[in-house]
């Protein structure tokens, strides 16, 4: 029964049927199936299939985002169970993400967050118009290995430099890799301000994040 249900969970992720994902997850939890098993043999295969289809161009971003939402709904049920068992789902890395102070643009940043989550990163998205000190605080609080900074205006882009300087002043610059992005952000800007990486779109962000984690 549970093997079949696990396959159904995988299917629900593939088709983006979040209500089914949640219902089936609850069924399995009630049947005392281990949360790690549900993740490893139900949810992750689904996300991997979605990832493959996205890579071949069969699936587009909305497919990916909807699938990630289904996964998130299921994880909301599973996380407390993991905590109870003193287990943790191994993430590809912890990321603090946000749009810098003075800037309210969020789509690109949110897309990066979704794609990073879909690729196994634990993302703390601070939203928009984020104070420089709040980035620093969150990094300290979460032990994040990556910080992603987004800006859409040349006048707010300068805050990306400020965050990097603040990380230096806080003595934690060497503990994180800083990724910058946004329409006016260029490679030369990223180099000038001492960022560790720069991406021009969400997929590029995932690639860079992965390579920075492996560096």
């Amino acid at each position, binding site marked *: 029964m549970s093997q079949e249900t696990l396959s159904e969970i995988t299917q629900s992720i593939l088709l983006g049927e979040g209500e089914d994902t949640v219902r089936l997850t609850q069924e399995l939890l009630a049947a005392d199936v281990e949360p790690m098993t549900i993740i490893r043999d139900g949810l992750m295969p689904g996300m991997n299939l979605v990832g493959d289809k996205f890579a071949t*161009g069969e699936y*587009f*971003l*909305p497919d990916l985002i909807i699938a990630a939402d289904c996964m998130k709904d299921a994880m909301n049920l599973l996380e407390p169970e993991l905590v109870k068992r003193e287990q943790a789902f191994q993430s590809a890395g912890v990321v603090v993400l946000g749009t810098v102070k003075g800037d*309210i643009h969020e*789509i*690109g940043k949110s*897309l990066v967050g979704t794609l990073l989550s879909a690729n196994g990163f634990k993302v703390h998205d601070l939203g928009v118009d984020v104070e420089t000190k709040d980035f620093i605080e969150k990094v300290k609080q979460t032990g994040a290995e990556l910080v992603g900074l987004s800006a859409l*205006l*040349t*006048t707010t882009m*300068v805050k990306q430099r400020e965050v990097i300087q603040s990380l230096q002043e806080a003595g934690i610059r060497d503990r994180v890799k800083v990724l910058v992005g946004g*329409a*006016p952000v*260029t490679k*030369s*800007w990223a180099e000038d301000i001492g960022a560790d990486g720069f991406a021009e*779109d*969400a*997929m590029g962000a995932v690639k860079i994040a992965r390579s920075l984690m492996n560096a």
Partner: protein
Amino acid sequence: MTQKIASISKPKLSVNVLTQEEIEQIHEATLHVIEDVGVSFPSKEALDILEAHGAQVDRESMIAKIKGDIVMEYLAKAPPTYTLAARDPELDLPLDGEHSYLGTDGCGVEVLDAFTGERRRSSKADLMDAARVADYLEAISFHWVPISAQDTPPESRSLHELEAVWKVSKKHVQTESIVNKREMKAAIEMAAVLAGGKDALRERPILSIMQCTFSPLGHDGGSLEAGLEAARAGLPIGYMTMASAGANAPITLAGDLVVGNAEVIAALALMQMEAPGCPVYYAAAQTSTDMRTGAYTGGGPEDFLFGAATNLLADFYKVPLSMGAFATGAKEPDWQAAFDNTMSAFMAVSTLSDMLLGAGLLYGSRILSYEMMLMDAEIWDMLVNLFKGIVVNDETLALDVIKSVGHSGNYLGQRHTRKHMRERWMPKLIDRRPYNQWEAEKDGAREWARQKAQEILDTYHPEPLDPAMDDELMRIILAEELSD
């Protein structure tokens, strides 16, 4: 030397993109959205004005819901026609619903050097060069700030940008880079210096203002307050939606139009509430999003359709339109750029969009290319000719010359041909040379465009701005930099 401007007037071609019924459906849907879902106005000043004029305002969420009657009542106060003044009255641009004018695009962050081809971050000096070339080109009727003066302080950057363009051109300037009240006040002061006082400026606005909305269904607080300041001073003010199908607007095009429409007409109504009768305009650069990557399309059938459809809405509301056109997503002035820019410009002019933005930038308005600017000017020139259409009258039916040439000979030596031959289009960059000549030289549009740009930069020196006036402008900028 009198400068000329090549606008398109009374085009003989038009495109039917939406029926009257469809326009009304979009309008009704828009009013429903503004009334039911509301529009976000994250500015206390804006909310106060809206509330005082009958809008239902939620101070926490900063969303205003406005009844359709109220929106239309205030929109009706907007003047349907007015003139964008230039410091040289010969270069004035009447927005009379019968003209299309091309402006430069903005606001890029990099420039491809005209001489070395090097790609670098844009500076104030680059901006002056770009505006100088735009001043030279007949195709360009007005300026947007084409590139950001990134070597100037962020808090006064938009003011430096104005000073830079005013130093090299008397054409009308429309700035899209002032996004807060403080800088707007200073810009108005600067414009008043050049116009001869605040009243003279109101009478003949040599500066107009463009603000971007914040999709979906919203605005930026600073942009609202800057706009209100402009409206009070009598500067033409427009709000531009860039609602992007699938990203910050519905994936379906009609829905995208509705979202953008709600943002724009709600803002224009706000301007009228604050300064009834102030000159305003609809602005739009709706687009689609590539669903595979999230990329901005920068051209494609959706963009082209929006380009034609939007003026039908602007006409419905009886206000002029500033339409995104040209502005290819291509990274080089290549086949993609030519395709994007020709189609988008054609569609925008086909429904008589008043202002087209704009020429000269690559990669989704990010990189200034002199080659592209010259090539865009050529595209515009071709369109000026295209939209003249086919004129049918006795002279053009040419029966006399048809009879006299008859069945042998040709028309090359005919007086009728000589009389009208300069009405035929003559390209500067399109290559019509024989194959072998091309093969021997292997040059073409890009090289010629680059050479022309270099020639303009080397030899074209417009009358400089009066130093006393320039000093005044710099004094205002400095005051901004030293304050707070």
